């Protein structure tokens, strides 16, 4: 009860804090009605290979987001009037986007290198254990051990070693980082890859040969989040049940997720009312739902950056002129209209439009085949060249996009071979940079910052796995590094602009269309909030009173 009150208070504080341009009568992220006890049946596209950070798919994210429920802080939901939907306030600058989750308050030392978080009392896991600093400490130590996503976070957060997370008292978590990091809080707000775990429970499952309970945690969850994974039959179904100790109490007490691999079947099930929610449909299918009186599509512009990536390990792709020519030859409108039925947004910069400082002004490219041919000839390929474009076969929209690209490229003499790959092979060859070029829509920057985005995707290929196109531009490298340690202000803004300009000049990525965050549900559901993770958060959902 006390916890509930506290949470309500923090929400009220939030409403006050964000009360400027986006102050709205609609409240976002409110506690759902306490009198509802609902079951939600979902149609998932695939079953997660594991519910731990070793795996890396949309479904894993989804389950982890709902069972671990995020880290010490979280993004603040605000109301986006033009889309009539709640979403993280990513258009704010830096720390203003963030509010507490497990932490009720926090402090940053003057040098910016020490961060202390005060935990709320009485946060309990499904197993009934109260959250203490030890859980955080254990989770970070495990992250260093796992060398997976959480480990990646430590690098970006500038956290050096497990010992840099300390517990001055059981309800205080302290981080010591190498250098000032203006993005520290935002990074933390996005982190639910790997915890925080209920270490008391997890340790029970550890064995001598498996001290971090890797095996058990692959198919089980031990978090403080709103849900607990009750049942997992790979390839068949997942059942989530409410964490009885989670406050405020979610209205959805049970989520039954059935695995239905075929998107058209998911659609059919939703249309027939056999499921409440269908995950990962295609735009055409969302269109059908919009025309259905009993269903709704929740839309938020979101942060997706589908792009065409010339991989610069290939000498032809390494030529700036060639990349520019391809940018001129890209069928932007066809992709927007035929694949996304005009529903998406054209992307014209590395920073998603809903993120701060995003500008389209540097991006000169539009579909102009004559110009493309000219630029291509100037780059030394008047007769074109042979190009292989890879894509993930599991994402059918990418196949359609690539087919359209192929049609246009062949008109300027680039002979295209499409290579649809199984997801695993695709990501293998992508991250080992064995492809010549790819179409990709699996990228969305978690942190609303140009520096972060450019750094992760387009710089330092020797350390950045995510830089799958092997872009290695000295200027960009320098700029992103500088932005990491530069506090908010005019200087940082200048860097921000230059990065966006440089990316438009050099075209390491050719931006396509952002389809936005789309979720398809029965009409009676409400309480949606978009977070930069692009997941649906079941704990906020409830049924509208009719």
């Amino acid at each position, binding site marked *: 009860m006390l916890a509930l009150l506290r949470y309500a208070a923090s929400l009220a504080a939030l409403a006050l804090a964000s009360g400027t341009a986006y102050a709205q009568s609609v409240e976002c992220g409110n506690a759902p009605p306490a009198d509802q006890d609902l079951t939600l049946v979902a149609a998932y596209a695939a079953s997660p290979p594991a519910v731990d950070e*070793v795996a890396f798919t949309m479904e894993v994210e989804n389950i982890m987001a709902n069972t671990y429920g995020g880290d010490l802080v979280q993004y603040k939901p605000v109301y986006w009037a033009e889309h009539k939907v709640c979403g993280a306030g990513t258009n704010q600058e830096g720390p203003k986007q963030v509010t507490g989750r497990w932490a009720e308050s926090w402090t940053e030392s003057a040098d910016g290198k020490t961060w202390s978080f005060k935990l709320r009392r009485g946060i309990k896991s499904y197993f009934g254990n109260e959250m203490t600093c030890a859980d955080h400490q254990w989770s970070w130590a495990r992250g260093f051990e796992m060398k*997976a996503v959480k480990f990646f976070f430590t690098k970006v957060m500038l956290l050096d070693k497990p010992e840099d997370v300390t517990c001055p008292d059981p309800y205080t978590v302290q981080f010591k980082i190498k250098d000032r990091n203006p993005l520290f809080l935002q990074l933390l707000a996005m982190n639910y890859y790997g915890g925080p775990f209920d270490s008391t429970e997890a340790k029970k499952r550890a064995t001598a040969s498996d001290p971090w309970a890797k095996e058990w945690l692959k198919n089980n969850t031990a978090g403080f989040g709103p849900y607990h994974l009750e049942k997992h039959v790979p*390839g068949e179904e997942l059942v989530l049940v409410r964490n009885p100790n989670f406050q405020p109490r979610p209205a959805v007490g049970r989520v039954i997720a059935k695995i*239905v691999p075929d998107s058209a*079947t998911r659609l059919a099930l939703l249309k027939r009312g056999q499921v409440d929610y269908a995950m990962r449909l295609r735009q055409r299918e969302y269109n059908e739902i919009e025309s259905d009186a009993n269903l709704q599509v929740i839309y938020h512009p979101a942060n997706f950056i589908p792009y065409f990536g010339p991989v610069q390990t290939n000498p032809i792709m390494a030529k700036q002129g060639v990349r520019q020519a391809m940018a001129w030859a890209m069928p932007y409108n066809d992709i927007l209209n035929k694949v996304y039925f005009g529903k998406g947004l054209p992307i014209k910069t590395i920073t998603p439009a809903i993120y701060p400082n995003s500008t389209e002004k540097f991006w000169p490219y539009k579909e102009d085949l004559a110009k493309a041919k000219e630029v291509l000839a100037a780059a030394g390929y008047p007769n074109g060249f042979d190009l292989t474009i890879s894509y993930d076969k599991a994402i059918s929209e990418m196949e359609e996009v690539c087919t359209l690209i192929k049609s246009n490229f062949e008109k300027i003499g680039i002979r295209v071979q499409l290579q649809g790959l199984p997801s695993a092979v695709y990501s*293998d060859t992508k991250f080992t940079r064995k492809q010549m070029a790819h179409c990709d829509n699996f990228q969305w920057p978690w942190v609303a910052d140009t520096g972060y985005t450019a750094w992760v995707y387009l710089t330092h290929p020797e350390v950045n796995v*995510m830089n799958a196109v092997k872009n290695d531009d000295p200027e960009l490298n320098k700029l992103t590094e500088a932005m990491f340690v530069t506090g908010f202000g005019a200087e940082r803004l200048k860097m921000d602009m230059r990065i966006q300009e440089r990316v438009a000049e050099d075209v390491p990525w050719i931006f396509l269309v952002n389809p936005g965050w789309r979720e398809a549900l029965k009409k009676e559901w409400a309480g949606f909030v978009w977070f930069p993770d692009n997941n649906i958060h079941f704990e906020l959902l409830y049924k509208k009173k009719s």
Partner: protein
Amino acid sequence: MSSVRLLKYASRRLALLPVQLLLVSLIVFVLVRQMPGDPTFLYTGPFATTERVAEVRKQLGLDEPTYVQYVRYLERIAYGDFGLSMRTSQPVVADLRQRLPATMELILYAVVFSVLIGVPLGVYTAIRSKGALNRGVFVYGMTSGALPDFWFALVAIFIFFYKLHWLPGPIGRIDLLISKPQNISGLYTVDALLTGNWPALASASGQLVLPVATLVFIYMSLVLKNTRSAMEDMLRSEFVTYARAAGLPRLMQWRYALRNAMPPIITVTGILTWFLLGGAVLVETVFAWGGLGQYAVQSVVNSDYAALQAVVLFSAVFTMVIFLLVDLAYFLIDPRIK
């Protein structure tokens, strides 16, 4: 007496199995080595560091020479360990155990109906070689073999689910909201019947209709055609002619013929079962059946090599067992086999 003979024969045939299995495993092992890409990545995910990759490689034994890997592999198989599926993070054996009943249920009904319809129809058309039914059967036999099963399934779904709403959609073995019957045999219909779980029985049966009908439609012609030609041959044979000359009634003549047509019918039933295991792959995929076939496809699409090799190995064992059974049935029917 004959049971002793049967036992001897069966044990001799069984003794061949391990040798065959060894060869089969070798083929599968060699196949797996053909795989493009590094399976390690699938375990580590894209963020993994070099050390982590090396560690996983070591864990998987991928750093050892090929022959050592083969021996290890054989050892593991001997212990029933087919490794972990990268896609489900479960032991492959557990995956198979879960999915096998689904496929078996499908194949079982498909075989039963193919035989129940195909054999009588084949016998009938052999005995009465004229008429509309015969003509129809001929056209059916010609066309059914030519149609792709997966396409037929899609069309059937379009008509009976999408347009007519007569049958449930391709969502697997049971309606999403009906809980599965208690696991006894793994076959939902059987288990539901045994436990008196009528809603589950109704749902499972409804879900079976389209996939089984597809398989039966596409593959029954195999049984039908072979029964008919075996029966025709037997009806033309000297001993049936002689039975007729000796004044045996028609029915007895047909029984003589059918008795002798049994070996080819049994063979073709074996072949059908064997074929259905392959045929089920695509049909399962279309119906999201969650069986072995769909598992195989998902394994291929996701380069889940441990899973794929287990499926391939299992399918070979399944084949051998089927043909062993066929041989034993032959042995029981035909006194000429020693």
